[in-house]
């Protein structure tokens, strides 16, 4: 495969590609490369050590003070889990599965304050990320984190709460306008009584479950929640809705209707996510120039992408949180059930400044070299002498040895092409050519500090 195509594929299916991997895979054809993505994407749950939480038994938590203590400590653990997730994204070999997990986390959007439920939910996303969509939705509908987030526990025969039923159709399967209020009401009845126990296992409270007949999309029966999901899957619109979201996320913000039709046809057959993604990555049009270098990286894609090229780790969990918050995307803490909108919405005056400044802040003491050929620049020294705030922004351990080793056979020109998927603006290109290229580290910082680096 050609290097640009490889880069494109790995930016979308992962978080970028290192020179070695690009080199190794360049000898393989597309089919082999895509197979590589799938065979490496085994399911490896992301679990953290919770042994110090064994004191929080059901009995112990009956005391209100203890339960509040659990709540507080649980929130701390969730922040640790957030850091762990980011480290997983940066270091894992199971690229595609992790990227898909991130995608689904912004599809089945959910938030919870119990670390056990958060972890369980996160691994349900990871496990099903390339599985069968129908099974996936059914599992999600029974996850304690989701049951809690969309008020399923308050959904009772006597007083139905429609929150989950509505979002199930509006956001998770069909999209707004593809069902009526009657469908919401009837399906809410099928999900009545859904609940969970202390250990996070799904239960149905028989007393609260509505056993009566429900009429949903012209079918009538004593439907359970799973039956409702099966009926939803029969609507081709469901396959189309998911494929459109996949297309916008992995291909282009602007949808090509013909391409979408192709995806929908494949997906509607059996709702197999792996088959769909394989089909997509093998398609010629996936590699069309109009799709390459057209998307704006999400904050996580930006942060993790940098780590792929120059491995670094945060010393303090608070710093990882702060950066995500300032960039507008904190994992496990979505703004609402609709998730992050993405695209241009990531960008405002504050986030663009921070995005461009972030590589130098994290990796080079907030300094970006501006040494040009044949001239001395003193404003540089003056500017950087007074930037204490920026230097203290976050404590990071950087593995430059890895970088040096991995780029030792890469020329400056090849570097430019590896860091920037899109051709730089003409003026920017000219400016880059004037810079003195003596250090690959400096050049790496310069490249990552360009607007072009925000693109994938």
């Amino acid at each position, binding site marked *: 495969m050609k290097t640009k195509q490889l880069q494109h594929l790995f930016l979308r299916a992962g978080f970028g590609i290192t020179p070695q991997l690009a080199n190794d895979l360049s000898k393989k054809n597309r089919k082999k490369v895509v197979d590589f993505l799938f065979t490496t994407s085994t399911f490896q749950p992301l679990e953290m050590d919770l042994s110090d939480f064994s004191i929080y038994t059901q009995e112990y938590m009956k005391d209100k003070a203890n339960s509040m203590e659990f709540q507080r400590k649980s929130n701390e653990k969730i922040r640790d889990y957030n850091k762990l997730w980011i480290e997983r994204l940066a270091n894992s070999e199971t690229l595609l599965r992790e990227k898909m997990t991130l995608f689904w986390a912004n599809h089945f959007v959910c938030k919870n304050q119990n670390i056990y439920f958060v972890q369980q939910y996160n691994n349900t996303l990871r496990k099903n990320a390339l599985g069968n969509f129908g099974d996936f939705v059914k599992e999600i509908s029974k996850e304690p984190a989701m049951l809690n987030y969309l008020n399923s526990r308050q959904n009772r025969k006597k007083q139905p709460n429609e929150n989950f039923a509505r979002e199930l159709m509006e956001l998770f399967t069909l999209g707004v306008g593809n069902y009526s209020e009657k469908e919401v009401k009837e399906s809410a009845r099928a999900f009545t009584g859904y609940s969970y126990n202390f250990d996070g296992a799904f239960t149905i409270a028989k007393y609260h479950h509505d056993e009566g007949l429900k009429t949903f999309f012209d079918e009538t029966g004593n439907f359970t929640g799973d039956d409702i999901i099966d009926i939803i899957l029969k609507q081709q619109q469901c396959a189309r809705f998911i494929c459109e979201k996949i297309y916008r996320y992995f291909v282009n913000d602007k949808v090509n209707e013909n391409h979408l039709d192709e995806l929908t046809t494949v997906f509607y057959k059996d709702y197999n996510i792996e088959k769909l993604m394989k089909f997509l990555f093998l398609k010629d049009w996936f590699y069309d120039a109009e799709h390459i270098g057209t998307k704006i990286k999400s904050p996580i894609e930006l942060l993790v992408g940098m780590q792929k090229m120059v491995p670094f780790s945060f010393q303090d969990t608070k710093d990882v949180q702060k950066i995500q918050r300032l960039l507008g995307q904190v994992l496990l803490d979505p703004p609402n059930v609709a998730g992050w909108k993405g695209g241009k919405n990531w960008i405002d005056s504050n986030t663009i400044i921070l995005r461009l400044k972030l590589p130098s802040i994290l990796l080079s003491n907030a300094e970006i070299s501006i040494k040009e050929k044949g001239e001395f620049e003193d404003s540089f020294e003056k500017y950087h002498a007074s930037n204490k705030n920026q230097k203290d922004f976050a404590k990071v351990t950087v593995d430059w040895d890895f970088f040096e080793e991995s780029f030792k056979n890469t020329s400056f020109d090849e570097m430019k092409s590896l860091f920037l998927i899109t051709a730089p603006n003409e003026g920017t290109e000219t*400016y880059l050519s004037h810079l003195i290229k003596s250090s690959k580290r400096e050049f790496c910082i310069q490249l990552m500090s360009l607007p072009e680096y*925000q693109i994938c």
Partner: protein
Amino acid sequence: MKRRDFLKQSTLASSLFFIPGFLKAFENSPPNNFGYKRLVMIQLAGGNDGLNTIVPFTNDDYYRSRPKIALQKNDLIPVSDSLGFHSSLLPLKNLYDQGNLTVINNVGYPNPDRSHFRSTDIWQTASNSNQYWQTGWVGRYLDAHGSNAYNAIEIDDSLSLLMKGENINGIATQNPTNLFKLSQDPYFKSVLNHYNDEHLSEHNLGYLYKTMIDAKSSSKYIFEKNNIASNNTTYPNNQFANQLKTTAKLINSGLETRVFFSSLGGFDTHANQLNSQKRLLDVYATSIEAFINDLKKQGTFNDTLIVTFSEFGRRVKENAGNGTDHGAASNVFIIGNQLKKQGFYNDLASLSDLDSNGDLKYTVDFRTIYASILQNWLAVNDEKILQQKFNTLDFI
């Protein structure tokens, strides 16, 4: 007001018309404060308990619902036969006496959401409670009538949904010097100076460049204005007062900013409400007092309207922890020198006829307040910005 008029009023008009792109530095524009209407939005984040802020001290239902945390008449600052201000709100009582305060009671929206995040989004986007909008109403105001990020400033480190439009966003700054320094890296300067924007503006890359160029010039403009301005009042020493101090400085500098936004957090008083609310209201009221004095001394109060809201009020009935849980409708404060209806705009809603959660029923949709401000204060088409037609109220 049309976009053209906005530009005409703006002293930047000349540079914007004749210099392509965003590269012009704005340091030469003289302050032009006359008739330049501004809005300062303040959120009491966490859900302020409106009932213990302005207290119905003759209402038996109030005392029955809150045996432990109800405030007694002699602890209050009475303003009418039936309503009294919380003892921390003496500065607000003074504004009330001077005709600079309008209190709108029972402000809310249909089908209220009791999550902080959702309800904040609803207040900031002006959506219905079942809609998830991705632009704030101030952001949409910028889309229609703004030209640069600094037309709307949030005094914080990151930008809230309120300030985000489809095509143009406000800018956030807690500290104009830090933001300026961050944006003025010599490397960015060189890159942006070399940038040519002939064929890129519609693509994402062009958008990134454009936003960075605007951010760089906006932060420079804010920094320079902030440097020449000063405060003429002593402020209390806390973060919220500092935010208002920065706001006053920027207003008094003649910065061409229509909307400022700040928030004061901590109002989520589920437990031991009395002390924490007392402290917070004191922070709020003393900071506002200093802020208004500062504006008055520099002649900018007349053209400034200050609106204080909270994402929801709290449950009428107290809880077991000497606090209150999330509620629905609550009061909104409007402060200014050009108020048409001063004092109480409307009566407090019934405390016996509550919604099914035991919360106050709203009688004023918060978006009618926005509509009134947009139409009567900022003189623009409110329907376009709110994307729905709302009645306007005659408080301004």
